[in-house]
């Protein structure tokens, strides 16, 4: 993985000291909240319902055991013994004290981590396929490109005061595990007929109150021109964005209002200007960064056998293990979705367990996923049983990846000051309702995603079943949406009709699932059946 050089470290250290001084001045009264708020947000520090919240960036979702142990230490020392993995592969702490925030950032800096650009009108943490460098189906590791773009855009003056936030994702497989086209700028690495590497580029995606799926704007962009192209996209947006209206500032609105064609035309025009400036990454720089992502020294001649004699283990293997590109290895997914737990939450002790596993069994490599789970990317098949036993001991061996209980939920009204309704209790109730493993397996792949308000942090627009919390005269109310997807078959979910209270929404989900079981044809997932029969049969089941 990437290692900071002296410049990275100097910048991050300087930033910590700058924030220490800003915090001191705020506490001493030299700054009021209006002056301080933008500064703390630039360092990932929000004020939430119960305390300050700190969002720590995990670049493209990759971390090592030392970093994970540091996250655990911080959870113990400065928080209440746990953290929350988010849908953007970041980690949030919920109980931070302002006076301690600079010390936390200083501790993070010792393991090459920070909270820069995890908030505000900036280019946010770049996300990537959590199987990067391991997936059997990828063309190449997408992370060198993510890292190059991270370096080129961090602290870049033109991108420091963007009209609004800007989210980038990079993948290199056909299977989309990163909700690619729900990003402002989505990059998929492909090869052309001549075998050259390039990007398929999509622009203008996003969730929030006005969801859009990113449009394809380039089928093939030669890989080494990516920075020119990205700058061109940002330049066009920066020029025209509706800075006067907070609901219209995201790039998706501009792409929509200009129209796909005109947006593309302007980007191509700016692109020519940038190409002439020669700001793209030189090959030597690409090579330097790519060297950090050299595959680990995989052993050869390993056995492909997995001893499945323990049925609980066999079940876990079937659900949680994915094919690896190296013979004898596998990708192991760790569920953070125990039945009735809080999705994405992990205790400090569990973090330490996972860090140990990564160190011993996965070349010191760990990933966070946008579905709020974790991944050990490079495990020898022969070690899977041991890994599973350790996970089980730590309460981390649920076998529910992509099943009905693998629910994404934002913090909602239990933590978030923007929320209309609680998300977590709804997720827990759904999990309890569908806890029976045979029933879960019979239902098959079904992705439920819950947001506590229109901002869509819980990806409800992309849920096979989405749930949106709304405020109905001061009480919590939930709308049901069907038919979304954040995978390669991206689609936007549609609202079924009037909303429900907390008990009602869980019943509605169950009626939806039962109707699917009645209607499905062999081999059909929920989403396939929905797409074949449409909304009406489900509406009838839900509203009678």
């Amino acid at each position, binding site marked *: 993985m990437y290692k900071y050089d002296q410049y990275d470290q100097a910048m991050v250290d300087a930033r910590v000291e700058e924030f220490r001084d800003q915090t001191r001045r705020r506490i001493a009264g030299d700054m009021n*909240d209006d002056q301080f708020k933008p500064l703390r947000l630039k360092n990932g520090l929000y*004020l939430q*319902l*119960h*305390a300050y919240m700190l969002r720590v960036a995990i670049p493209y979702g990759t971390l090592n055991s030392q970093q994970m142990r540091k996250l655990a230490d911080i959870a113990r020392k400065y928080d*209440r013994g746990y953290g929350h993995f988010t849908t953007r592969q970041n980690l949030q702490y919920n109980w*931070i004290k*302002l006076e301690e925030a600079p010390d936390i950032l200083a501790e993070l800096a010792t393991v090459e981590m920070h909270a820069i650009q995890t908030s505000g009108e900036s280019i946010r943490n770049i996300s990537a396929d959590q199987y990067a460098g391991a997936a059997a189906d990828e063309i190449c590791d997408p992370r060198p490109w993510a890292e190059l773009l991270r370096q080129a855009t961090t602290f870049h003056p033109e991108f420091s005061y963007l009209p609004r936030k800007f989210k980038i994702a990079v993948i290199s497989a056909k299977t989309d595990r990163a909700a690619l086209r729900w990003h402002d700028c989505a990059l998929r690495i492909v090869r052309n007929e001549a075998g050259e590497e390039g990007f398929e580029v999509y622009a203008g995606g996003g969730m929030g109150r006005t969801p859009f799926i990113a449009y394809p704007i380039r089928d093939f962009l030669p890989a080494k021109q990516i920075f020119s192209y990205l700058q061109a996209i940002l330049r066009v947006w920066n020029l025209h964005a509706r800075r006067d209206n907070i609901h219209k500032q995201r790039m998706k609105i501009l792409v929509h209002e200009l129209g796909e064609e005109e947006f593309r035309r302007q980007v191509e025009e700016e692109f020519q200007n940038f190409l002439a400036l020669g700001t793209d990454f030189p090959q030597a720089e690409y090579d330097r960064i790519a060297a950090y992502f050299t595959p680990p020294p995989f052993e050869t001649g390993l056995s492909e056998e997995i001893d499945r004699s323990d049925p609980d283990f066999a079940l876990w293997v079937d659900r949680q293990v994915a094919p690896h590109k190296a013979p004898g290895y596998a990708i192991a997914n760790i569920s953070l979705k125990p039945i009735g737990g809080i999705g994405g939450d992990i205790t400090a002790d569990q973090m330490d367990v996972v860090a140990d596993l990564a160190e011993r069994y996965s070349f010191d490599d760990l990933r966070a996923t946008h579905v709020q789970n974790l991944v050990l990317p490079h495990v020898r098949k022969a070690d899977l049983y041991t890994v599973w036993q350790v996970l089980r001991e730590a309460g981390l061996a649920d076998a529910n990846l992509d099943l009905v209980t693998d629910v994404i939920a934002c913090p909602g009204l*239990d933590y978030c000051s923007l929320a209309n309704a609680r998300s977590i209790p709804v997720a827990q109730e759904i999990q309890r309702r569908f806890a029976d493993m045979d029933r879960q397996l019979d239902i098959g792949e079904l992705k439920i995603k819950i947001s506590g308000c229109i901002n869509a942090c819980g990806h409800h627009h992309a849920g096979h079943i989405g749930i949106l919390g709304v405020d109905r005269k001061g*009480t919590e109310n939930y709308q049901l949406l069907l038919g979304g997807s954040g995978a390669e078959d991206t689609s936007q979910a549609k609202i079924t009709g009037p909303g429900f209270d907390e008990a009602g929404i869980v019943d509605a989900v169950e009626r939806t699932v039962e109707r699917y079981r009645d209607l499905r044809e062999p081999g059909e997932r929920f989403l396939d059946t929905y797409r074949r029969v449409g909304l009406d049969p489900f509406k009838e089941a839900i509203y009678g």
Partner: protein
Amino acid sequence: MRILTGNDLKTGAVIWWTGQDWSLHVEDASDVGDHGEAVLAREDGARRVNGGYIVDAEATPKGPRPAHIKDRIRALGPTVRPDLTLKPADPTAGDWVI
């Protein structure tokens, strides 16, 4: 009744105006009538509160109960972590929120 709330500047903790000072417990909150804005301006200026605002509440035998669920959750803590709420030993605390 109308009560005042906000967050402690240094710790971020949810606090309620008692009439003289700030308390962690909503039970201690006092009715500010029409003086809310003035108290907030003074307390904010003195950095004793951050992001303060006025809340409608109902007077009950157990003390003020904020009208909006968001403020009741702020008063208690996350409903999904009873162990971390201000009343961890009280199994009925959650009922007060809903």
